[in-house]
Every structure is written in C-alpha cells, then in structure tokens.
C-alpha cells in the first residue's frame, strides 16, 4: 500500500518522498513510542528487566555460571557484539564441563517475543506452555530483556482493578 501512496504523492508534486516499507509493525516491534487509543496499554517491553546476564559464544560455561549465580539468576543469554540473541544457557547447560564454550552448551534460537506484544497475549502463551518468563527482543533480534510471567500477571491484575474502579466511579 505505501509504495502506491509514495508514487501518488510524487504525482501530486511532492519532491522528496520516502517509503517506510516495513511500516508501523516494524516500528512498534522495535519498542519505539506510539500514539493512539491503544498506545498506552501494557506490553511485554514495559515489564522487561533490562539488567540480565549476557555472555559471548567463546566464554567458558564455568565462568559464566559463576557470574550468573552471583547475580542471583539462573539463566544467561548468549549474544554477539550487537546484542543479537544467539542462544540461552540454563538448566542442564550448567552441567557441561566448566571449560566448555558457551556456544557448545547453549540452546540455540530460543523463543522470543517483541516488545509490543500485549500482556494478555504473552501471559496466555506462557501459561499454556508453563513458562515462567519470556525473552524480549526487537524485530531485528536485539535483546531487550527478560519479562517474568509473575510481573506480567500482577500488572494485568492491577490494570483490571483500576478499570473496575474507574467503571464504579462513573456509575
């Protein structure tokens, strides 16, 4: 649709016309601001904890595990220099020989969610798959953080209570 609009604008005398082909889906998936009726609803990116342990492919599992435990966590995201998510170390990954490279021990291609996914949707998925948290990445795969299911459930509950209170006030 936007290519036709761009050509039409040129035919109307506009001299510098640009077509953002990936469109608003791409913009929202990057966690960038928006406006409109749905702009304020809680989303996965709002609750993602940004401070999560990360490591590189070549780091040794033993060193990483030590760091992860010291941070009070149980998982580590394996990223490259651009913070693109390549894998995850957790659970049985820690049972590898401590000298093993993260690349050998990690689970590749973990499921990730975009920052703009509504909380209702992501909580439903996590419940169905009995998952306690979700990795949040931008549409280009860059790590945003980790969203705990518990925090999302709490936020949804609070939003529900606030909505009920607002309706009661109106009534």
């Amino acid at each position, binding site marked *: *649709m*936007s*290519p*036709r*609009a*761009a*050509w*039409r*604008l*040129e035919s*109307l*005398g*506009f*001299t*510098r*016309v*640009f*077509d*953002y*082909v*990936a*469109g*608003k*889906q*791409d*913009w*929202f998936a*990057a966690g*960038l*601001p*928006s*406006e*409109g*009726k*749905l*702009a304020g609803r809680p989303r996965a990116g709002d609750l993602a904890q940004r401070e999560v342990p990360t490591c590189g492919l070549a780091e040794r599992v033993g060193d990483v595990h030590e760091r992860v435990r010291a941070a009070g966590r149980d998982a580590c995201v394996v990223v490259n220099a651009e913070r693109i998510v390549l894998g995850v170390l957790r659970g049985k990954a820690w049972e590898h020989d401590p000298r093993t490279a993260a690349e050998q021990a990690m689970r590749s291609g973990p499921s990730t969610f975009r920052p703009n996914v509504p909380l209702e949707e992501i909580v439903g998925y996590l419940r169905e798959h009995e998952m306690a948290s979700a990795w949040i990445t931008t549409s280009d795969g860059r790590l945003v953080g980790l969203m705990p299911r518990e925090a999302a459930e709490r936020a949804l509950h609070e939003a529900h209570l606030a909505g009920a209170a607002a309706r009661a006030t109106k009534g």
Partner: protein
Amino acid sequence: MPSEIQRDEVRRLVEGGAQLVEVLPADQYEEEHLPGATSIPLTELNRETTSRLERQRPVVVYCHDAQ
C-alpha cells in the same frame, strides 16, 4: 522516484523535520500510529487532502508492513 527506507532513516528524517503520513484506513490510524503522523488513507490521497502537507519538505509514508 520514491526511496525505500528503513527505521533508522525514518527516525533521522523525522528528527530533521520530515512529515509522516499513515495511509491506512482512519480507524487503524486512530488505534495506534507513529508519533506525530498524519492520517491520509490511500483511498483519499488527492490534491485536496494533501494540501495540509508542505510540498518542499520530505514526506515519509507508511502502512502496516511490507505485505
């Protein structure tokens, strides 16, 4: 000829004063749109509806996605 651009270029152009135009139907615009964007649905794109835009300033158009 219109130029295809990516997100970073959109941000750069908008910061430099470009005009953003969403060409989806108005109800989709009302639900959610890029900050500062104007709604001119493709079906209503004509000389009259674009008169509020400045012809010499860059214009960035977008819809939902590349599909």
